[in-house]
């Protein structure tokens, strides 16, 4: 029920521990950019990180390793290696 897209952080304003200021990032996807709020993001991103954006809020900061793992998992599945998947695919 939730349209959310990965966008790249270009600029950050505010501080994760300072609630007197706005917590904002400027994010970009293929040349289209917008301000989003960082009030509810799980991990404070760095410039260059990707965040998942829903309704003007970053709801998750992507971790490069997890992104790599995700695409690798799926690529393995596509190349018929079931044993590998059963090892990786448990509770995580």
């Amino acid at each position, binding site marked *: *029920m939730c*349209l959310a*897209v990965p966008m790249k952080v270009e600029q950050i304003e505010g501080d994760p521990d300072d609630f007197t200021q706005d917590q904002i990032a400027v994010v970009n*996807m*293929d040349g*289209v*950019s*917008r301000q989003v709020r960082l009030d509810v993001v799980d991990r404070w991103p760095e410039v260059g990180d990707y965040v998942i954006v829903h309704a003007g809020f970053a709801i998750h900061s992507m971790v490069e390793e997890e992104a790599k793992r995700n695409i690798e998992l799926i690529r393995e599945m596509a190349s018929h290696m079931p044993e590998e998947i059963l090892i990786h695919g448990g509770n995580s």
Partner: protein
Amino acid sequence: MSDKTILLDHGSGGLASQELIGELFLKHLTSPILKGLEDSAVLDNRPGKLVFTTDSYVVDPLFFPGGDIGKLAVHGTINDLAMRGGEPVCLSLALILEEGMSLEELERIIISVAEASESSAVPIVTGDTKVVPRGKGDKVFINTSGIGLVDESISLSSRNGRPGDVVILSGTMGDHGITIMTRRAGIALDGDLRSDTAALHRLVAAILAAYPQDVRTFRDPTRGGVASTLNEIAAASGLTISLEEELLPIRAEVRAACEILGLEPLYLANEGKCLAVVDPASAAEILHLMKQTEAGRDAVVIGRLEEGKAGRVLINTPIGGSRVVTPLHGEPLPRIC
């Protein structure tokens, strides 16, 4: 004119109206027929079938990246003539102005109208201006009507489609619609998003000069987008149209803006593009010729007409599946879910 805004007097037909016409409209609109300020324009006889169209323009905001209401009003009506194979001859220009509208904004619009008219070589030969009280309008509504001529031998229609016909789109899709959408407060996005407003009559003339009998129809996919127009063609021809999703030409910024807002480029308006349904035997050459034109430089083949459920538009997806593309039921709106 000492006032900075439009007054009711400007629409009354008296001296204030004449001042507006003389000092603003005729300053920029240069047709000698228009300058005669007669009740109607009398045109010379020319051979061919008459083509006639009308359109009204109410876009908000009035000015946006890539164009404005003035350009739209000229290009849009030229394009409607061109889609039936018509060579545009002239346009009318009627304005309904809201009392209080800024004269400076009005002049900017008229300058834009004049520029579009001159660069398209289609004169505005007659016009009208009315003023409504504040609150009864929305700054300006524009109507343009157009007259054109089409050769006796040309007979374009959406009903002409045959199985095997190729569908060409003259360039990238959704540019105008997404630009207007993202100018609105509350859903603004920054980026190189701009309207594609453009006149298509030269593109059409070039194709018809070389392949007069090989085009079944031209259609410009304005409101409702490519999806709606293809549905109309499929219904009129009693056939199915099958598209390839991977071939659809969409600019990266337009695609990104649509992903963020939950919109589909297939349903967004285009103001400088046309679909061409053509004989498969000459499709490759027509595509090549289209790409030599300014307006058609990004043209691609996007699908075909086929036997099948009449009025159906299908799209083949990259996974090897397919889905139906239905016509739009209302204005596209951003969604979060």
